[in-house]
């Protein structure tokens, strides 16, 4: 297969230079980091943003009257504006900072679910969901006497839209769907799902943990009611995430947690709550990481999402073709519509053995069930090995992976 040359404008060497961790060695070999679906590495500018905050203007935000507090508050709120533009929202108060995608989903399940779900109501998820988009719904369904329905998939991991349509009924109150599967990389037809669910008056949350770094996101075009993603998967810090929600829906929802920041007035006889988005941001937020999240999103926009996606798609195509040269290797979820994730099994070899033996060659992949046990069960496997690509990965690294896998096969033969 021909190695397609990179686009103009995306100079991969200069991109790699911005990620200090990519220059370290693992077990005496150059690191080949292919576990980006778990977390992406951080460019120097993001690391610097954290240091600059702590060394230059660390202060608690919103209530302080002094200069440091004003600077920190301005930087914090700047991120909200950047996030709003990054995902195509119309209002900054629709952007709520969380710890990550998981907390965003829990917030909606808990706050919206407790206030709105009645016994007999139905929540729809899919077989492709991460445990984070299963368990919060199981918990609230159990509490409210509601039911969880699961959309089936094909053997290739494709969402069965017809089956989904048949599940919809006036009982359907909520649909929570992963945009791109973390385990397989397959992209779900979210726009069609959102429109179909809305026709029955159901709300829709899109789990954007994997998609936000790879695809252009426009929540207004999608018309989703909620959208959640994590900072650490978009070249940002850990411990920060975003929940987008439509203003009128968020306004009607009760607070998720009580504490500082989320109140207007507190007395022992009762409390009135703050406006959006602060109503959902109880306590001192993760100020440093929120500020650095803006830097991460600016980093992506600076290179260009389209350019990044083109590069990642080339890597995906190349990797899929090269991996298929290995006898006994089967790609799981080998369909057209995918983000840059390749999940595979090799006949007769346990994924854990693959992971350990690749690690000894400096190659980081993820092995196991990827926190999608029901999906693995549906596919009749206990786990896969997963290579996932980011803006800084190269064709040469895929060659190293393929060579590494040949070695694994030889060692276990």
């Amino acid at each position, binding site marked *: 297969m021909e190695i397609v040359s990179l686009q103009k404008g995306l100079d991969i060497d200069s991109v790699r230079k911005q990620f200090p961790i990519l220059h370290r060695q693992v077990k005496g070999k150059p690191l080949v980091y292919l576990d980006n679906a778990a977390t992406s590495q951080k460019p120097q500018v993001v690391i610097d943003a954290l240091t600059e905050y702590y060394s230059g203007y660390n202060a608690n935000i919103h209530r302080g009257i002094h200069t440091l507090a004003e600077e920190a508050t301005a930087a914090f709120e700047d991120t909200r504006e950047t996030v709003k533009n990054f995902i195509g929202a119309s209002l900054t108060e629709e952007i709520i900072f969380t710890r990550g995608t998981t907390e965003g989903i829990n917030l909606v399940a808990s706050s919206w679910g407790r206030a709105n779900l009645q016994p007999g109501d139905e929540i729809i998820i899919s077989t492709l969901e991460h445990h984070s988009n299963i368990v919060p719904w199981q918990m609230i369904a159990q509490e409210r006497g509601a039911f969880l329905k699961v959309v089936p998939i094909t053997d290739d991991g494709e969402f069965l839209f017809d089956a989904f349509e048949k599940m919809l009924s006036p009982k359907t109150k909520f649909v929570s769907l992963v945009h791109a599967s973390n385990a397989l990389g397959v992209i779900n037809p979210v726009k069609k799902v959102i429109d179909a669910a809305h026709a029955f008056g159901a709300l829709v949350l899109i789990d954007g943990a994997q998609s936000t770094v790879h695809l252009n996101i426009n929540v207004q075009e999608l018309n989703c009611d909620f959208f959640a993603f994590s900072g650490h998967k978009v070249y940002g810090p850990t411990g920060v995430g975003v929940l987008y929600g439509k203003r009128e829906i968020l306004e009607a929802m009760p607070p998720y947690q009580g504490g500082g920041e989320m109140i207007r007035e507190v007395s022992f006889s009762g409390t009135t709550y703050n406006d959006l988005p602060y109503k959902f941001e109880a306590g001192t937020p993760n100020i440093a990481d929120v500020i650095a999240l803006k830097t991460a999103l600016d980093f992506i926009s600076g290179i260009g999402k389209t350019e990044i996606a083109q590069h990642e798609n080339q890597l995906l195509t190349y990797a899929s073709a090269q991996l298929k040269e290995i006898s006994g290797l089967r790609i799981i979820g080998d369909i057209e519509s995918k983000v840059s994730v390749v999940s595979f099994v090799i006949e007769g070899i*346990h994924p*854990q053995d693959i992971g350990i*033996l690749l690690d*000894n060659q400096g190659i980081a992949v993820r092995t*196991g069930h990827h926190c999608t046990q029901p999906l693995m069960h549906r596919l009749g496997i206990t786990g896969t090995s997963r290579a996932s690509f980011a803006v800084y990965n190269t064709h040469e690294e895929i060659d190293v992976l393929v060579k590494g896998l040949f070695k694994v096969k030889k060692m*276990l033969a």
Partner: protein
Amino acid sequence: MTDTPAIQTIEEDIVEEFALFDNWEDKYEYIIDMGKKLPKLEDAHKKEENKIRGCQSTVWMVSEYRDGKIYYKADSDAMIVKGLISMLIRVFSGQKPGDIIAADMKFIDDIGMSTHLAQTRSNGLRSMIKQMKLDAMVWASKENN
């Protein structure tokens, strides 16, 4: 029956064997080889209650007590884990419960396999050693009654 050497003697043997390898490939091929040589565990033993649960691979282990000594049998669906447990069985099988409980397992460091001790979420050595020692404690308490 010939007497099984003391735990420390076996550990020293293993350390000596590993000292012969100067690259990771040889080391792991040796572990894989130990896995392949592990005596088969009967399917009847591969049940839920004999599982040592980990995030990625499954280990089944059973032990029996004869004449004051414990004998272990095990299997795994992953080859490196199987090799590691084969090595542990070589160290512990045929030993007295008190000796198993007291073993400090420092040799794992000496053979450069301590990374497998740290893998808390995968089925690392740590959970296997813990289960083997727990079994020894159970047999020891029965012994005393």
